[in-house]
């Protein structure tokens, strides 16, 4: 999927509310004519943001009227539409026909509060992909669908959120995104965005590992952290002695045998080559 970074068009009636965010990369439109002008002028890879159903409709109308005069342009364009208020159900197929990526086309999404959402989306100094901006819960498939600040989706099973030691359990019927996208709340239960990304995104893990001190970047240190994350004791590796795990974690064994690595990886639930990323 093509992701969209950096160029935004806010569709709303209140310019003042967004004034401080406007720049060369964040534009504002409140009429169909303005939307159409931006659509024609700007290259692809825009993110359109609508906060009300009305402006999702205005976007559809403006783009379809331009489509008649631009027959050579391919559809759908590689653009993202962030519908903070889910669009009318009847307009959803049209939106999908016109744009390559629609986020929030279901009323089940819970978004960051609007001011916090704007802070995350329009701040060029941050890595938006490190923030969660919306979440939706599906009790049938027992999955949580998250949207990162760069519009990338992330699906996490309910089982990822195990009860904490003090007995607090996640309530998946009450999902919220808070702390400027640094926290996903499930009722009284809160998860850091950091741990969700760390467990599910290899690129995020690699970036984290790269930032660690050199002494913490060893294979042994990674194994130690991953074993802790899985809440395993050194004695929880059935075919291996605790002593062997301890020696690997202390980097006393530089190159563990393949069979040893496979046994460790199997117990940790990751491919052998991934252990060193944690």
């Amino acid at each position, binding site marked *: 999927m093509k992701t969209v970074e950096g160029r935004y068009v806010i569709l709303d009636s209140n310019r003042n509310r967004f004034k401080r965010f406007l720049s060369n990369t964040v534009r504002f439109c409140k009429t169909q004519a303005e939307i159409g002008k931006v659509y024609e002028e700007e290259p692809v890879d825009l993110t359109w943001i609508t906060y009300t159903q009305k402006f999702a409709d205005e976007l559809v109308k403006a783009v379809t009227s331009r489509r008649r005069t631009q027959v050579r342009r391919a559809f759908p364009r590689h653009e993202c539409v962030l519908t903070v208020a889910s669009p009318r159900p009847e307009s959803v197929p049209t939106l999908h026909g016109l744009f390559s990526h629609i986020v929030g086309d279901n009323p089940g999404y819970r978004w960051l509060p609007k001011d916090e959402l704007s802070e995350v989306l329009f701040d060029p100094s941050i890595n938006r992909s490190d923030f969660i901006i919306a979440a939706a819960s599906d009790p049938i498939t027992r999955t949580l669908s998250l949207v990162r600040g760069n519009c990338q989706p992330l699906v996490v099973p309910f089982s990822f*959120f195990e009860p904490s030691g003090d007995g*607090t359990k996640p309530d998946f019927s009450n999902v919220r995104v808070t702390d400027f996208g640094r926290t996903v709340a499930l009722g009284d239960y*809160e*998860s850091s965005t950091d741990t969700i990304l760390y467990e599910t995104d290899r690129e995020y893990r690699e970036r984290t590992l790269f930032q660690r001190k050199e002494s913490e970047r060893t294979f042994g240190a990674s194994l130690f952290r991953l074993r802790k994350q899985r809440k395993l004791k050194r004695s929880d590796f059935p075919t291996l002695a605790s002593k062997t795990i301890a020696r690997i974690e202390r*980097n006393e064994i530089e190159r563990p045998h393949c069979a040893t690595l496979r046994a460790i990886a199997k117990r940790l639930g990751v491919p052998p080559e991934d252990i060193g990323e944690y």
Partner: protein
Amino acid sequence: MPFQLELPKRLRARGWKVKIREKERLEPPHVTIIFGKKEWRVGLRDKSFLEPPGGRWADIDDEVRELIEKSWKALQNAWDEKYPSNPTSSREEDNPKDNQEDSDEDS
């Protein structure tokens, strides 16, 4: 419910929060300081900044820092309660280079 350090209203209004949530990266034990979009994680064993690398106490409001220092034991207890499998007190776990040949410190 996350453990949230009680901060004066004016600090809360400015966006400061100090939290231990139910789901965090387990190792090493830490407390998270949040200020708007910014976030710092401070190790609960040695008060070192884990994230971002190069983070400093100078980045944190003085009053927030003082409150954290005063509440250090309560923060450690809160972590231990939420994450009994990796308590702050298990110092032998802190450094994988620890030279304890055959100890299974978890047992």
